[in-house]
């Protein structure tokens, strides 16, 4: 049974992939639409089925197929053959051959391309159909089945609209405005962003083309204008995030594809080969190649099933977890003051601007007495804590601590340590106290572990901690922008921020007990008793589960899923699938639980829009977020005293010693942990 379900998915997914959507119902509707031209519809299905059969034959892993990723090119090839020849034994045999070849070509190209993080798009289809069309010139047996598709079921519409719809239909080898309109409605229903991009891409391309060739009408009749649609959608929404900047990029891409389409058309027409999607493939591949290699910021790193979802996922991530992955913990404990911040007065300049200096201050001074001895300084001798988990790759600790008033101009970094973090970047800390290092090169160190003491070696006018992130693990390497993952300022806990000069900040030391209480293991079961208005209602059970991507989630009996992650510094929820439920409330009540118990703190978090708004409002907000990302910002305040998290939604509490949350309380509902 499961195998059939998988087969159905494998057949349906490729159809929706053609529209950059990932939804089997879209696939089903699209299959139906393709049957408006039975030859195309049938041949497409044959293409997919033959591919699956071939994949079975070579014992290809099923999970690959379920993605629909390696099949949509075969689907296109199948439809392409069906578009040219009406189904016959010979044409079906041709489809079988071509599908198998396309499938292998897809796999091979993907392997090669993935090294450079570029997608194959429909390049395999373009190549294979090129061969088929070339070869078919000789196949007189086949030519007898050649069909004329020119005027199939069209309705009377102004050319300017009809042209667009026809182009849309052509993506599925259905160059009729009815098919186009149906597909367009489908797109509109699932993604407004795709719809807008399709419209703007098309008309922008047509405008450019018409200026170049001098005829608006001729441009509208161009059978390959669908390339503009595909380029626009791919560059602003699918591979790049739907933002203003990418909108402009997409239009530039469309303009380029106009020129490519004409050029290729001239060349190909000698051999009667249709251009199909080649211009789209070339344009998008070139864009993605350069943008991915240069770490373009608005790249869509996690492609979700619609551009809306991708954007929503991206915005949630940057609001909640910051834009940079270079995150450090503070290298000390207790309260310190910023002496130099990024791009500051004295030494944090140019390539070395991303660095911080910290000193300890009491009553406005960094020292006791007159500050004439290094030992008078409050910072001197304080423990330095590792800001990351990683390996020590370089260190020195034999230099003497300067007398106050002297600096070491030769060894200006003083005693130092360089740690290669587990995330790949490097952290350098300078001016360590002589012989205070507790580690040696090669050692592994955990975040917050004590590594040395604050000293006054190197170019240091007074004892302080200098910290910077670097691209390379060499002393004096250029600095890289970073942020501090957590710190406390007054009574607020800030995430992924950088303090300003002279600000007093408190380090957060991880309370491992909170982390261990939230250390959920696969198949842990937590039972709760539900009370409404203090009256017992029912018992519910949350079970810890894991999906195929190794993502953990809590699942209730109704099958709602709440995804969580136990980071080194905090526990957080990041995704919810399902309807209204206690789990959905739990996400809102405690989107994250920091492992901090010593302070009573306020913090803010940003909830995903789908959690707090109705479906209609969510889609509106997601659409508007392309214009102004701030509309997506659903800021909520939380208060955490080490035991309970309070917010406008209610309260959740941790038990002092037991695992999991003991109380989940919202409105008049209370879930009490049953032990």
């Amino acid at each position, binding site marked *: 049974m499961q195998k059939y379900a998988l087969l159905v998915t494998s057949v349906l997914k490729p159809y929706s992939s053609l529209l950059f959507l990932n939804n089997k119902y879209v696939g089903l509707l699209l299959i139906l639409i393709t049957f408006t031209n039975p030859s195309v519809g049938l041949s497409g299905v044959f293409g997919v089925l033959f591919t699956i059969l071939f994949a079975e034959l070579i014992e290809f892993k099923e999970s690959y197929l379920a993605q629909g990723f390696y099949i949509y090119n075969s689907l296109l090839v199948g439809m392409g053959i069906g578009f040219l020849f009406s189904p016959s034994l010979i044409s079906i045999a041709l489809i079988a051959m071509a599908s198998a070849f396309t499938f292998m070509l897809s796999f091979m190209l993907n392997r090669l391309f993935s090294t450079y993080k570029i997608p194959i798009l429909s390049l395999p289809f373009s190549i294979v159909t090129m061969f088929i069309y070339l070869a078919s010139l000789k196949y007189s047996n086949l030519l007898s089945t050649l069909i004329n598709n020119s005027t199939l079921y069209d309705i009377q519409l102004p050319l300017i609209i009809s042209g667009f719809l026809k182009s849309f239909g052509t993506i599925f080898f259905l160059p009729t405005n009815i098919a186009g309109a149906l597909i367009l409605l489908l797109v509109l229903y699932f993604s407004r962003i795709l719809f807008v991009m399709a419209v703007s891409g098309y008309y922008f391309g047509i405008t450019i083309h018409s200026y170049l060739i001098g005829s608006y009408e001729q441009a509208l009749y161009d059978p390959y204008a669908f390339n503009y649609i595909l380029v626009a959608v791919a560059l602003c929404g699918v591979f790049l995030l739907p933002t203003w900047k990418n909108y402009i990029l997409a239009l530039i891409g469309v303009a380029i594809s106009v020129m490519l389409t004409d050029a290729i058309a001239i060349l190909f027409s000698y051999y009667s080969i249709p251009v199909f999607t080649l211009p789209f493939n070339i344009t998008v591949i070139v864009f993605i190649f350069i943008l991915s290699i240069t770490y373009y910021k608005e790249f869509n790193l996690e492609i979700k099933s619609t551009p809306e979802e991708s954007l929503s996922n991206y915005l949630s991530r940057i609001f909640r977890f910051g834009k940079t992955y270079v995150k450090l913990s503070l290298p000390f404990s207790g309260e310190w003051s910023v002496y130099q911040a990024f791009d500051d007065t004295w030494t944090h300049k140019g390539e070395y601007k991303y660095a911080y200096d910290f000193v300890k201050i009491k009553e406005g001074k960094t020292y006791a007495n007159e500050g004439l001895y290094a030992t008078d300084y409050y910072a001197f001798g304080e423990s330095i804590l590792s800001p990351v988990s990683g390996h020590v790759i370089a260190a020195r600790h034999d230099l003497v601590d300067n007398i106050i008033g002297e600096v070491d101009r030769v060894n200006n970094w003083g005693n130092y340590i360089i740690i290669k973090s587990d995330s790949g970047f490097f952290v350098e800390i300078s001016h360590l*106290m002589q012989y205070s290092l507790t580690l040696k090169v090669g050692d592994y160190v955990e975040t917050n572990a004590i590594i040395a003491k604050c000293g006054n070696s190197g170019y240091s006018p007074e004892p302080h901690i200098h910290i910077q992130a670097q691209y390379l693990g060499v002393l004096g390497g250029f600095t890289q922008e970073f942020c501090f993952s957590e710190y406390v300022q007054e009574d607020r806990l800030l995430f992924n921020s950088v303090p300003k000069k002279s600000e007093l900040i408190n380090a957060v030391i991880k309370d491992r007990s909170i982390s261990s209480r939230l250390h959920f293991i696969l198949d842990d079961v937590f039972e709760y008793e539900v009370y409404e208005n203090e009256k017992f209602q029912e018992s519910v059970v949350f079970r810890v589960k894991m999906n195929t991507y190794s993502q953990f989630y809590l699942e209730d009996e109704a099958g709602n899923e709440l995804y969580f992650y136990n980071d080194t510094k905090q526990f957080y929820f990041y995704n919810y699938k399902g309807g209204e439920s206690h789990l959905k409330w739990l996400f809102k009540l405690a989107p994250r639980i920091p492992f901090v118990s010593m302070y009573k703190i306020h913090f803010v978090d940003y909830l995903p829009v789908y959690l707090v708004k109705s479906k209609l409002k969510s889609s509106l907000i997601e659409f508007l977020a392309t214009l102004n990302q701030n509309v997506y910002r659903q800021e909520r305040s939380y208060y955490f005293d080490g035991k309970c998290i309070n917010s406008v939604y209610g309260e959740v509490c941790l038990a002092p010693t037991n695992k999991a949350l003991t109380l989940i309380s919202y409105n008049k509902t209370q879930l009490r942990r049953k032990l």
Partner: protein
Amino acid sequence: MSKLTYEKPTINKIDFAMASKYGSPIHTQKIRTEIDGISVNELTQKFGSPIFVFSEKKMEELYNNLYSAFSSRYPDVQFGWSYKTNYLNEICKVFHRLGSCAEVVSEFEYQKARALGIEGKDIIFNGPYKPYADLKIAVEEGAKIHVDNLFELDDLEKIATELEIVIPLAIRINMDIGVYPQWSRFGFNYENGDAYEAIERMYASKRMKLVGIHSHIGTFMLDANAYRNATTKIMQLKEQVERDFNSEIAYIDLGGGFASKSNLKGVYQSTDVVIPTPDDYAEAITNVIYDLNKSEKLPKLYLETGRALIDEAGYLLTSVHGYKRFPDGKKGYILDAGVNLLYTSTWYNFTIETDRHYEGENEPSLLNGPLCMNIDIIEENISLPPLNRGTVLSISPVGAYNYTQAMQFIRYKPAAVLIDRDGNARCIKEVDDLATVNYKEV
């Protein structure tokens, strides 16, 4: 202008060693004009000399620093104020106000804690000598008794039978933690199985059960790793006991011994270099608990830190009574405080500061106390400018042990002053007089 007093000429070596090419940034005189904003001269004028001065602000700071180093890493930490370190009532009150319970090692200290309003359950009763009658009172009042030896276990069994109760107990253990000399005099040894046998003995009697494990590995521990080792062994024993006797060890007690920023004689680096920070100690202990805890619950963690919480908050102010020139040319000052008040001067080099800047070259000087004893030397060889009669010297850090161990010998025990959080000084103990000394003499 008054006439200069005649002084016998001497030749002194002048030390330029610390001067750099920018001149000498190191001031050659250590000066302390005030404590928490009150001038040292004002303090001696108002409260007499010599006098112990304690800063409540500094005590709070030390307490909070150490406590937050632990509480930020561990959810259930309790400090017990070590009475023997300094049991002046007002000092104890400060620590109780900050959240400490009491840690006592004798019936006298126990009574003192009770008199300060501390309930039995908030008193940890330690020490090798617990008189039967007082032990019984402590049991009745629910004190946390940390058993030191088998005789005490017998006593406790007898008390339990008399009272018809099961006494929850903690056991003091000693062990090899890699620091020598090993403190093996107190409690039961872990490695040779004495500790485990004593616990078996407890459960065999059915009158006692184990709820806590305590160790105190030494004093002025300069290596935080020693605590790592101690905690490891405590956690191992805890697991063993919980498994074998199906019991719950509710708390572990790592004792004290954290170093203060005092200069141990024979250690030549700065205290900042050699003294572990609160973070060092906290990390060592809590990480081991997390790594080795096998039971559902984390044990409550007790610490009985004394020195690290009070030493740097205490000063002894003493005045120059006179000086003389010894035959070897060294200058000798006679002070009104001596080793009778500075018991710890045997082990520590104190910081000695003058009340203002004095003109003249530094010269090697000897600081003598008021006792008519040859050993009454506070500093053998200290570089000081010429001081006058009446100059007030601040000796620090002396908050730990010096007051409690100060002797009434030759002179009266001095007064003590506490400067509170608002910077107001008040006398918390007056200077003794003949009546105090004669009291109870028959």
